Structures are given as structure tokens and as C-alpha cells.
């Protein structure tokens, strides 16, 4: 995900200047803080928030400078990271459910923020969590918003309560109120009220929203806001806070390249937590918001936790252990590879996953050019092999390769490349599984850093030390926290090196798979 990518670019660049310095002078701090300020402004963070943020960072950085600590750059990264997390709301906040169902959730926001789509996503997510949501169509303003909600509800498999046709006809307050009653009668335990988009300056519409709130007494009022919004985020958020007093924020369209300053501004100015993030047009492109992970993303520490969570959902743990064993005993075959790849596909978009990896910033361009069909093609090649060939690639002679190429609609060169990549990766995985560090020049500890069609990166100059100061800071932090640094450096800085990581090698698997996929 390219969210915040540019902000992290800027911050990383600003901090890179500090990297070579052994000691911080106040002048260095000021220069860095100025860079951070500009980076944040370009990311549409509200000016007041920027001032506060830079003031806090500056103060703490000066303290660090005064204490003459070593590795000041790492400290600054750490400080920025801490401050980002605290602005973004510290802990992740979960949706508050009512003690006595139904839980009423009201959605409010500007026009075009994505409320109706979000209603569908939320309904789908709630259904997955074992709830029975009811969607209430209280947007009677926008032409055919009701129809849209009905379609979205159908896609999400949720019931839609839409007594009024909309298009300016009907009273949204009554509809919302009746909706809650309808939910009680039909035993729906969650009610989602979709309201019309409204401007913060529109007093009548704000009053209407407040009336809906009064009539339905929602447990949560979610303020839906577009991640691309500019400085106006604060004015709008304040207006909605005064008008309806929302309890949480949902950020939408995070899949674009918006630098997401709105997230910082709104969270900081209203003091309300961001609860969910919406990241795409499909109903499943939706996730709970984790402030710490988002901060890591901003700083390009990657979002390993989300990635692993997704992996755990898609991967069978038993399966994963078997694969790890196979890696170790050198019996990993193309057949296993195929299976792994199919599991990988279950996890959703490869692009998005790779975007969560640390260091992904450097390969965003390549990421944009990544063709998801590459997997399909690789699959086709393997499926054109006989079971014997899949188990033992050494069988593959020229005529077999030609047959496979024909069968899969690819060229012999493609087949050759696949086999080559597979062998390399299998070798590497064997080393990793046995606890060694794979000897790949320039690869460093960054999983998936090499990318399709591009020459191998010579990015990490200092061997296995991360070239990214932020990441190194995290590694050091993990070390300081008393964690033994595991042999394979990939992602180990994230506190995963301990017990849990060993049993399920999904992380290393992924790295290898990505290397395999990305030629």
C-alpha cells in the first residue's frame, strides 16, 4: 500500500542527513525539524498540528542532543515514530458494542467521502465477525443513494431497511428511528445508519444529523473522511464534532497515493481515534486501524504485523510447518511451490502485501508495475509439468521444457527462468531454515527487495545492517528490549524473533516466495 509513501520518503530523506553524524547539534535538529515541517505540510497535515508536532519532536530531539547519546539519528527516528503514534491515537481502538443489542452505528461525513461503500464493507466485516447487521438507508438526499445501498447490502449479504425511495423524498430522522425498531423486531444485533453527505458549513443538514443522533442514540458515530482531504480536514472535523460529536473516525481511499496528512490532523485535533481504514473498491478492502502500524508505515518500518495477520488467516499452520520442514530437508518441490503460491493468492493482492514490507518504499515504482498475472503465468508453467517433473526439476531437459512452454503459452526462456529461480530460492531457503544467513549480495535483510525485471539492488551497503535508519532503530529497540537477534534478520526487529516466529515460518516463506515470483 502506497499510503503515506511520499511522507515517508520525505521523512526518511530528512533523517538520512543525520545518519552520518555521531552527535547532534541544535542546528542539526533545527534543520531536520524544518524538513519534517515541510514534509508534513506537503502531506496536507494541518498547520497547527504540524507546529505542535515539530515542537514536540524538536524538544525531545534537543534533549537527546544534550545527553550526547550515540546514534542520534536513530533517536530522532524513534522520537518521530513515538510522536506519530501518539498523534494517531496511541492504542488501537475497537468498535464499542452495546450491552443490550442492537448496537447502533451511525455514519456521517462529507459528500463523496465513501459512506455508502463503507456501510457495505462494515456490514460484510461485521457478518464475518458473527453479527447480523441491518443497513438503514437514511441518505434520502443524493439521487439513488438508496438504490446504491441496496445493491451494496446485497453484495455484503446484509439486510437493508429502505422504506423511503430517497431522491429528496422522506424524513431521514424517521427512517433511522424506524430502522432501529425494525432491527429490534427482527433481531438484528447491529444497525448501520447510512446518512446523506453534508458540508460542515451547512447548518440545516448538521442539525438533521444531530437529530438522527438524538433519535437513535447510537453507540458509535463514525466520521467518514477521505484520506485525500487537505487542510480543510480540520475545519470539517471540528464542524462535525460540534454538530454530531462523532466517537470515531474512518479513513477511506487509503489505497491512493494520498499522503494521508488528514489522518494525523483529524486524530490530533478532535482527539477521536481512527477505528477503521478502507483501502480499495472491493468490499473486503477494509481493516481495523492500528496507529502503531500506520506510524511504522509512515516511517517505512513496514507493516509486518498486518501482513502476518493476513498470512495467518490464509495459511494453514500445519501446512506451513510441513513446508518449513521441507525447506530444511531439501525436499521442497515445485509442487509445494505451486501450493504455496495458491495460498498466497488467497491472501489477496500481492501488491498490497508487498507494500507492507519494510523497505517497500524503495520499490514502489516497481510495485506499481507489478503484474498480478505473473502468478497466473507461473502457475500455468508449473501446471504444464508432469507430476514427476514437478517433484524433480532435474528431469527437465530441452524437449520437456519446450513442451511445457507450449503447454503454458510461454517461451522456453520463461520456463528456464522459473526453474532457475526456484532452485536458487530452494537453496536459500534451506540455509535460512537451518538458521544461516543467505548469502545474497545487496539483498540485506529486506525481504522482497529484489524485484521483477529489475537488476538486483545494491541498496544495503552495510551488509546485513539495514540501510534504513528507521528500521535500524527498530532493530536496536528490539535488541534493547532484551530480545536475542535471530539469525535471519528479515523483519526480526519487530519483536517477532521470539517464540511465535519459530513455529510458523510464514515470514521467511513469504520472502522466498516473493523472490521466486519476482524475477
Amino acid at each position, binding site marked *: 500500500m*502506497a499510503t503515506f509513501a511520499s511522507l515517508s520518503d520525505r521523512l526518511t530523506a530528512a533523517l538520512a542527513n543525520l545518519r552520518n553524524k555521531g552527535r547532534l547539534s541544535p542546528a542539526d535538529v533545527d534543520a531536520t525539524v524544518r524538513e519534517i515541517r*515541510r514534509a508534513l*505540510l*506537503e*502531506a*496536507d497535515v*494541518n*498547520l*497547527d*498540528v504540524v*507546529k*505542535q508536532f*515539530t*515542537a*514536540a519532536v524538536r*524538544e525531545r530531539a534537543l534533549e537527546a542532543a544534550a545527553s550526547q547519546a550515540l546514534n542520534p539519528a536513530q533517536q530522532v527516528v524513534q522520537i518521530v515514530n513515538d*510522536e506519530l503514534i501518539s*498523534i494517531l*491515537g496511541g492504542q488501537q481502538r475497537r468498535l464499542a458494542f452495546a450491552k443490550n443489542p442492537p448496537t447502533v452505528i451511525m455514519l456521517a461525513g*462529507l*459528500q*463523496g*467521502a*465513501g459512506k*455508502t461503500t463503507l456501510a457495505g464493507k462494515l456490514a460484510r466485516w461485521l457478518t464475518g465477525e458473527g453479527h447480523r447487521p441491518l443497513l438503514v438507508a437514511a441518505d434520502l438526499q443524493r*439521487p*439513488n*443513494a438508496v*438504490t*446504491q445501498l*441496496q*445493491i*451494496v447490502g446485497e*453484495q455484503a449479504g446484509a439486510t437493508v431497511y429502505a422504506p423511503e425511495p430517497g*431522491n429528496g423524498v422522506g424524513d431521514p430522522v424517521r427512517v433511522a428511528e424506524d430502522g432501529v425498531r425494525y432491527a429490534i423486531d427482527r433481531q438484528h444485533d447491529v444497525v448501520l445508519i447510512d446518512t446523506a453527505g453534508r*458540508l460542515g*458549513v451547512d447548518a440545516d443538514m448538521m442539525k438533521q444529523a444531530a437529530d438522527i443522533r438524538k433519535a437513535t442514540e447510537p453507540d458509535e458515530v463514525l466520521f467518514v473522511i*477521505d484520506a*485525500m482531504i*487537505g*487542510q*480543510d*480536514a480540520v*475545519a*470539517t472535523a471540528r*464542524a462535525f464534532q460540534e454538530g454530531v460529536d462523532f466517537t470515531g473516525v474512518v479513513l477511506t*481511499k487509503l*489505497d*491512493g*497515493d*494520498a*499522503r494521508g*496528512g488528514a489522518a494525523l490532523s483529524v486524530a*490530533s*485535533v*478532535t*482527539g477521536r481515534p481512527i477505528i477503521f481504514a478502507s483501502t480499495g*473498491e472491493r468490499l473486503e478492502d477494509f481493516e481495523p486501524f492500528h496507529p502503531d502500524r500506520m506510524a511504522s508505515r509512515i516511517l517505512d518500518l513496514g507493516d509486518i504485523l498486518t501482513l502476518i495477520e493476513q498470512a495467518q488467516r490464509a495459511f494453514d499452520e500445519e501446512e506451513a510447518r510441513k513446508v518449513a520442514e521441507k525447506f530444511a530437508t531439501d525436499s521442497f518441490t515445485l509442487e509445494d511451490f505451486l501450493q504455496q503460491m495458491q495460498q498466497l493468492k488467497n491472501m489477496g493482492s500481492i501488491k498490497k502485501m508487498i507494500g507492507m514490507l519494510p523497505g517497500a518504499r524503495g520499490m514502489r515504482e516497481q510495485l*506499481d*508495475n507489478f503484474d498480478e498475472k505473473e502468478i497466473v503465468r507461473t502457475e500455468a508453467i508449473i501446471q504444464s509439468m508432469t507430476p514427476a517433473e514437478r517433484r524433480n526439476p532435474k528431469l527437465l531437459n530441452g524437449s520437456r521444457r519446450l513442451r511445457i512452454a507450449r503447454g503454458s503459452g510461454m517461451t522456453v526462456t520463461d520456463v528456464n527462468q522459473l526453474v532457475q529461480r526456484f532452485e536458487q530460492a530452494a537453496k536459500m531457503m534451506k540455509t535460512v531454515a537451518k538458521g544461516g544467513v543467505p548469502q545474497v549480495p545487496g539483498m540485506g535483510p529486506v525481504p522482497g527487495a529484489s524485484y521483477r525485471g529489475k537488476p538486483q539492488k545494491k541498496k544495503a551497503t552495510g551488509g546485513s545492517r539495514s540501510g534504513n535508519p528507521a528500521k535500524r532503530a527498530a532493530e536496536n529497540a528490539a535488541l534493547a528490549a532484551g530480545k536475542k537477534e535471530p539469525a535471519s534478520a528479515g523483519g526480526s526487529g519487530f519483536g517477532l524473533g521470539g517464540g511465535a516466529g519459530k513455529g510458523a515460518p510464514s515470514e521467511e516463506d513469504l520472502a522466498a516466495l516473493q523472490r521466486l515470483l519476482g524475477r
Partner: protein
Amino acid sequence: MAERTPWSLAGRLRNLFGGGGSTADAPAEAPADTSPDAPAPTTTLAPPPAPVPVPLKRVIDEDTWDELEAALISADFGPRITEETIEDLKAKVDRFRTTDPRDLQRMLRESIEERLAKFDPTLRLTERPAVVLVVGVNGVGKTTTIGKFANFVRNYGRSVVIGAADTFRAAAVEQLATWAERAGAEIVRPQHQGQDPASVAFQTVEHAKRNGIEIVIIDTAGRLHTKSGLMDEMSKIKRVIEKQAPIAEVLLVLDATTGQNGLLQAEAFLETAGVTGLVLTKLDGSAKGGFVLAVQERTGLPVKLIGQGERIGDLTGFTPHVFAQNLVGV
């Protein structure tokens, strides 16, 4: 742009330039990053400064520039344009040896107007049929803009057909049909759910040619400019239309609440869709849309229309003078 809101740039500038009636000499609000005990960022910000008791500025001093910077940044001008503008104004203030904030305000308006007026906001709809393709990211108000635009053109006595080529979003076609009906325009719908948008566009232009309709407006699905697959789909729509008739205008709809991301949107759409003009929507809110200055300068695309409301008449042509005046408040 009827009346300004308390958050408007005009409001901020009015205070700054001493337009307010109060002469209370409360100290200027100290910028937060100079105060040693800035509150922790987790706490909510202090409420916005009350609009009235602001010092009446008689001379231009450092505070004036700080406040001007804050005002421009808040209007989404972006750090680069803000710096440029302030440098430019500082030079002018020096040259004309003025200390009156009102001169500064006038110079600011002129400077903005000058920047905006470099581009020609005229819509070119001379071909018959004149095909207008409307593109943009999700939720900026494309469909609404088309409804208003159809009405706008109908008011000049032209016949209009709208092509509902947003076959992706749920109920987009119905939404557009409602607008078409209000505007008294014909509509060409997809024959089935999920039909290729390019084919809908093709049929619309065909329909217009067959029936001698003068203006064709094609709605497209909202797409984030980072999704290359969707961007390719759009260039296909464009290619397919061009087989029938030259495209008169490709209008990119930008939401005034958008921040600096608007720039990236414009660049991406210019590259793949060959945008010829911008439409700035939702100007009736508290957002100023200051980023269009940067967009215009970076891409050379003129703003051609502005939308400022949900009613069908809330769409007007773009006048640099009026826009600058509304922005600055003089």
C-alpha cells in the same frame, strides 16, 4: 460563492489585514513551535481563536507574514506556492515601500489573479457533436457535475445526451438518470450490468450522431489515479470515442477539499486521459481549493467550471477575478 464561513481564507485575512472592527490589543497568537510548553500532541488543540478580538494591524511586520503564511497554507496553497507568493509579496512591499496591510492584501489578490489568468478558461464545444468526457477519482462529484453541466448547456438551448459509462459503482446509472431527467437531457444506459464502459460511450456518441444531438457528455466511473488497470480502461474509453468523433473536452473533476494530492491526480489524468480542463467542485464548503494554483502551474490545465452546491443551477464558469476575490475577500 455566497457568504464566507468563519474558517474562510477571507475571514483569516480580514482579521490579518485589520478589517475587523475591534481594536483590542490582545497579543498575536504565538506560533506553537516557539512556545516551550507546547501541549502534548495527544490532547485536543485549543479551540480556534475567536474571530473578533484580533489585533488591528496597522503596519506590516513579521507577524503579518507569519499569519499570511498560515492563511495560505490553510487554504491548501501548499508549501511551495505559499513560499513563492510570500517571497513575491515581500519583494513588492519593499519596492513600493508600503507598510499598509491593505496594500498587501490587494497585491495578494492581484498576484493570485495573475497566476490564475495565465490560462484560458473557455470551454470549447464547437464541434458537432461536441463530446465531453468527464473523469476523476472516486467521490469528487462527477455525476452531480454532469447533471449540472447538462442543465447548463441546455440553458443555452443545446440538445444533450448523457452516456452512463459508470457501469461499476452500484446505482451510478440510476443516479445519473435522475440528473438527466432534471436537466431534460437524454440518457444512454448500459444494456446490462457491468457492460464495458467503452462500449456505452461508443453507443452514446453513435446515438448523438444518428439523432443530430449537439452535445454528448460521458460519465465515467471514479478511479484512483494510482490504479493502472483502471487508468488503462479510461484511455480505452477515450480511444473508442475518438473512432466516432473527436473529443471536444476532457474534464477532470477535482474536489475542493482535496489537498496537495490534487496535483498528483491532475498529472496522472493528464497523462492517461489527455485532460483539457478542470472542474472544481464542493466550493460551497469551507475548503478553498487553493491547490488549483499549483495544479494549473504544474500541468497548464485551466479551471473551466466550478460547482458550489447540490442544486442543479450550482455550476458556473470560472472567472479568475471572482475566484481570487472570493479567496482573498477584497
